């Protein structure tokens, strides 16, 4: 083939290669970004309006809410919970689709991009996409008067860390599936939704029966919510904060390693 411009194909260094994967996923995503923008920003805003302002108007600021109006108590937790939900979606169907239904990842495997770079690109893409939607939510929350201090910047960080703590292992799992994705609705129904409802987003975990609490402590959402409120309200204590950070970071690291492994196994057979 002859070409007008002359350029040779080459192997990109890993950071560039990972970025090219992000670029490809972005091209795919932006074709209908509006609908998913609605679910990842507008939905949590509706929650904030209905539960924070509406339902919250019936709740007296008390020790349980840190002496704050309910909407301000809720906002830093809601950003974490909604990032987690968006992460759960982005880590499941689109990943399985790219391996099984569209097989686009199989096409990428024939390019100089490696399985490891592809896995890292997928995770980086989810991270960037969550950064934008979580930041957008916090801006709206601030406009609604639900934000108390610049500490919410820490909440944004907590939300992203928590969401990735779920996303990384879930991406690894999705890459290992060869089904029609039935498992995903079970994950949403029995893991993501109960976590959102019981892991401290809407009411303190102390309100739960003592035997349930250890289960809650295992969820990334509880750790993220604690971190987020600690930052937003300036109530953090060194040791617990460190503990939450270590737990969530460990999940991200283990999940990312597993993702690299399942991508490699799936593509290099």
């Amino acid at each position: 083939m002859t070409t007008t411009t002359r350029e040779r194909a080459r192997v990109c260094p890993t950071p560039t290669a990972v970025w090219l994967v992000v670029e490809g996923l972005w091209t795919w995503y932006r074709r209908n970004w509006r609908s998913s923008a609605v679910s990842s920003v507008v939905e949590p805003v509706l929650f904030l309006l209905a539960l924070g302002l509406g339902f919250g108007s019936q709740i007296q600021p008390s020790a349980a809410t840190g002496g704050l109006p309910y909407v301000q108590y809720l906002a830093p937790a809601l950003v974490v919970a909604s990032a987690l939900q968006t992460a759960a979606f982005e880590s499941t169907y689109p990943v399985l689709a790219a391996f099984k239904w569209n097989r686009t990842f199989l096409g990428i495997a024939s390019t100089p991009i490696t399985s490891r770079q592809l896995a890292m690109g997928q995770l980086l893409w989810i991270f960037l996409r969550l950064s934008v939607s979580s930041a957008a939510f916090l801006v709206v929350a601030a406009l609604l008067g639900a934000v108390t201090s610049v500490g919410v910047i820490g909440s944004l960080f907590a939300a992203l860390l928590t969401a990735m703590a779920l996303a990384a292992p879930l991406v690894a799992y999705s890459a290992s599936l060869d089904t029609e994705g039935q498992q995903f609705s079970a994950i949403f129904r029995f893991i993501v939704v109960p976590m959102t409802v019981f892991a401290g987003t809407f009411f303190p975990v102390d309100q739960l029966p003592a035997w349930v609490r250890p289960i809650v402590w295992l969820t990334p959402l509880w750790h993220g919510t604690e971190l987020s409120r600690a930052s937003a309200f300036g109530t953090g204590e060194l040791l617990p904060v460190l503990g939450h950070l270590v737990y969530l970071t460990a999940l991200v690291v283990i999940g990312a390693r597993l993702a690299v492994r399942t991508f490699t196994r799936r593509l290099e057979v």
Partner: protein
Amino acid sequence: MRPAIVPDVVAETAVRDGGLVRARGLTKQFGDFEAVRGIDLDVEPGEAFGFLGPNGAGKSSTMRMVSCVSPRTGGDLTVLGMDPRTQGPDIRARLGVVPQQDNLDNELTVRQNLHIYGRYFGLSKAHVRAKAVELLDFAQLTDRADAEVEPLSGGMKRRLTIARSLINDPELLLLDEPTTGLDPQARHLLWDRLFRLRQQGVTLIITTHYMDEAEQLCDRLVVMDGGKIVAEGSPGELIARYCSREVLELRFVTDKPDAAAAEGLADRIEVLPDRLLLYTSDGEASLAAAHQRGLAPASSLVRRGTLEDVFLRLTGRTLVD
């Protein structure tokens, strides 16, 4: 900025290794199943090389190893003079791959598919945009450039997959069953495009289970069966070596073909469910002899030997089973 095609590099590689692809005792195992059982291959620059074989013969497994996607289990393999185990990305940068099943992004446009794919090869956006225009023309998809891929016909999707595989100006193009499932017009259009690539000096490796495709496209081919290479040569050589000059077909409608009655009429007889194939140097003479013996076929035909006959002889069954 260097030229997009690189015949000098191809030539240099060839001199160094005696081939674009070189395999010795190559094997591939999936658990207990041995898909490829020790094959030797040499593909020379500029040739069109074919793998012919029934489903499950090990063609695709071999192709996936050569395309540096699937790691080999054993043996030696070099592609473009490099080892896929250690230099996979470097090799893949210079290959074009057309997989058996299309893996286009159906939700994007034809053009976007080319753009995204080209970027994975480290090509600039400007280069990929210009190259896409040229490839869309080559694949006769210019008027569908900004349409989504999903509703395109099978033939169009296949042409797009081939166009996509050329985005990096590959030195070696690997096509795994490029025309399976296409209607005759779509197949001929595809063959025409592949023929043009050959004329431009692109080395092709093609797997197929269509005889006519192998005869049309391949300079040289190997027949694979059960994970092994059972014959190698040009289509003409294979026919000369494994088949007689003429083939007499005796078709039977109601009776089962009676092979015993035809015994001795030809060098070799193949029994199919509805007919006998008699491999003979003189078809008319054999037909006359058959009639004398009282064989009463519903119809008969004398024709030249083809690759299909070679295939029957070598693998003991028809190709598409």
